[in-house]
């Protein structure tokens, strides 16, 4: 195992974990605002951060990924910065927030994914600051029904217990759970009824993530159910079962399907690359005589394929990659016809 360890990625992962741990200590004021009951969540989150950064750093070393990573940042901070920043902002809303491209795959998928994604993201936005001790609540001195919210140890705002703000603050994770459950059931329905999905899906990559999210949401809702309707009698069971499911999720985060959450923003870098390509010279297919991609993209792919050990250069000069997809299919058909013609029979 040690022989396959990627030292550069290891360095980044250790650095990220150390910075995160330091930010927890600083943000919780030397841990005085850290809730010891959440220690297991903290260590699982630190492990997840280590794994995510390690995998991301390894991923960026692949030639095609490195190409887009570098090009994306280079283009963003180029003289076209204002235009590209506006493009990024537009796509951030359109593609990452609203996820319109998933709605185009199917409206039901789009709806399910938006519910699931925002349920998960809102749950993370709420729990991570609580686990890190960055946010905590205290009873306002001299009162018995007013809470104070603190952010990074600084007083943020007060709110009365029993009011609208308190209801939503203390139940925000329940609303997240409901969103997640609605989304998960949309996807589960698809995964057990769509023949194409059934044939290609795997348990660990497609079904387990959904089952895990159901368990997290149900056990999370169970905590509220317990203290609202069961006078807290089942609290140890609810707390431990919820912790186990969430920690499993965090430990598995760098390895499984949810890593796509961290990969997806690469789509924004690709968008800048494509926009830059559209503005530049176009590659014209020698077969069709039509532009089919940017010259920059075709030339970069020649470089990437060469780095990967492929050699599509033609003996007479040029490259097979100079052809459009249609041109490549035609070249194959022509080569086949030529071979058949040379043999003296078109069929056999």
């Amino acid at each position: 195992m040690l022989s396959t360890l990627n030292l550069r990625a290891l360095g980044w992962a250790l650095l990220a974990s150390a910075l995160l741990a330091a930010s927890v200590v600083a943000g919780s004021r030397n841990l005085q605002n850290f809730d010891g009951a959440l220690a297991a969540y903290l260590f699982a989150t630190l492990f997840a951060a280590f794994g995510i950064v390690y995998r991301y750093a390894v991923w960026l070393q692949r030639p095609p990924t490195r190409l887009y990573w570098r090009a994306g940042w280079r283009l963003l901070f180029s003289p076209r910065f204002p235009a590209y920043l506006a493009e990024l902002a537009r796509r951030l809303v359109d593609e990452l927030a609203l996820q319109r491209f998933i709605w185009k795959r199917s409206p039901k998928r789009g709806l399910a994914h938006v519910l699931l994604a925002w349920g998960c993201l809102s749950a993370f936005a709420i729990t991570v600051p609580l686990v890190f001790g960055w946010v905590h609540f205290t009873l306002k001195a001299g009162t018995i029904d007013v809470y104070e919210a603190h952010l990074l140890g600084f007083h943020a705002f007060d709110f009365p217990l029993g009011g609208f703000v308190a209801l939503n603050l203390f139940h925000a994770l329940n609303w997240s759970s409901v969103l997640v459950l609605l989304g998960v059931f949309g996807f589960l329905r698809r995964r057990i009824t769509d023949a194409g999905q059934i044939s290609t899906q795997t348990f660990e990559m497609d079904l387990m993530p959904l089952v895990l999210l159901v368990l997290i949401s149900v056990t999370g809702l169970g905590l509220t159910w317990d203290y609202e309707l069961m006078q807290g009698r089942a609290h140890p069971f609810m707390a431990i079962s919820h912790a186990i499911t969430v920690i499993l999720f965090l430990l598995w985060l760098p390895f499984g399907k949810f890593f796509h959450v961290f990969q997806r923003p690469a789509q924004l870098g690709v968008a800048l690359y494509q926009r830059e390509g559209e503005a530049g010279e176009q590659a014209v297919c020698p077969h069709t005589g039509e532009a089919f991609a940017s010259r920059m993209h075709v030339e970069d792919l020649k470089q990437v394929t060469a780095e990967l050990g492929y050699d599509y250069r033609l003996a007479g000069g040029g490259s097979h990659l100079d052809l459009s997809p249609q041109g490549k299919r035609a070249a194959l058909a022509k080569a086949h016809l030529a071979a058949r013609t040379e043999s003296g029979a078109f069929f056999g």
Partner: protein
Amino acid sequence: MTTTASRSHEEFFLDPQRCIGCHACEMACAECETNGQLAMIHVDYVDRAMSPQTSVQVCMHCEEPTCARVCPADAIAKDELGVVHSANAARCIACSNCVLACPFGVPKKIEPMKLMMKCNLCYDRTSAGRRPMCATVCPSGALWYGPRERMASMRPNSSPVNEFRFGLQKVRTRVNVMMPKGSTELVVDGTEAP
């Protein structure tokens, strides 16, 4: 649905000269459950101005798939049956690398969906021991799926070839192309008339 094992003795045989351009395979391809009702097979006029020749192209399922290696998102995978699958919908970032790098010109990018899709050998059918949709409807035998011995008896003057050379690059595939008897590879070296 039935989930019997793939029949490993059955192979795909492609004979472009037999394609009559009827597009029946396209219609059948769109019925494949894994494609979302989109046809992934390509039926082209090779050079419409000069000839009525048509050609058909399915994914050749390369042993070392260029599409998968150039994918920046690790979205394309080859399974233990040698089938190179469509892009993983959760990972594909619609960069078109696979579309432009595939030496056979197979992958399609569906821009509004931000997704690459391609022929995956009708995985819902072949993994259950059935023939791919296109091969069940091709009237001229340009697309055929079955045991190698059966193909040898039907086409005694042809040899199945699964080695290609694109310029300096050799490519081995799971899918075969029927070539003149005794052929061992199909060379695409840029000398074909543009």
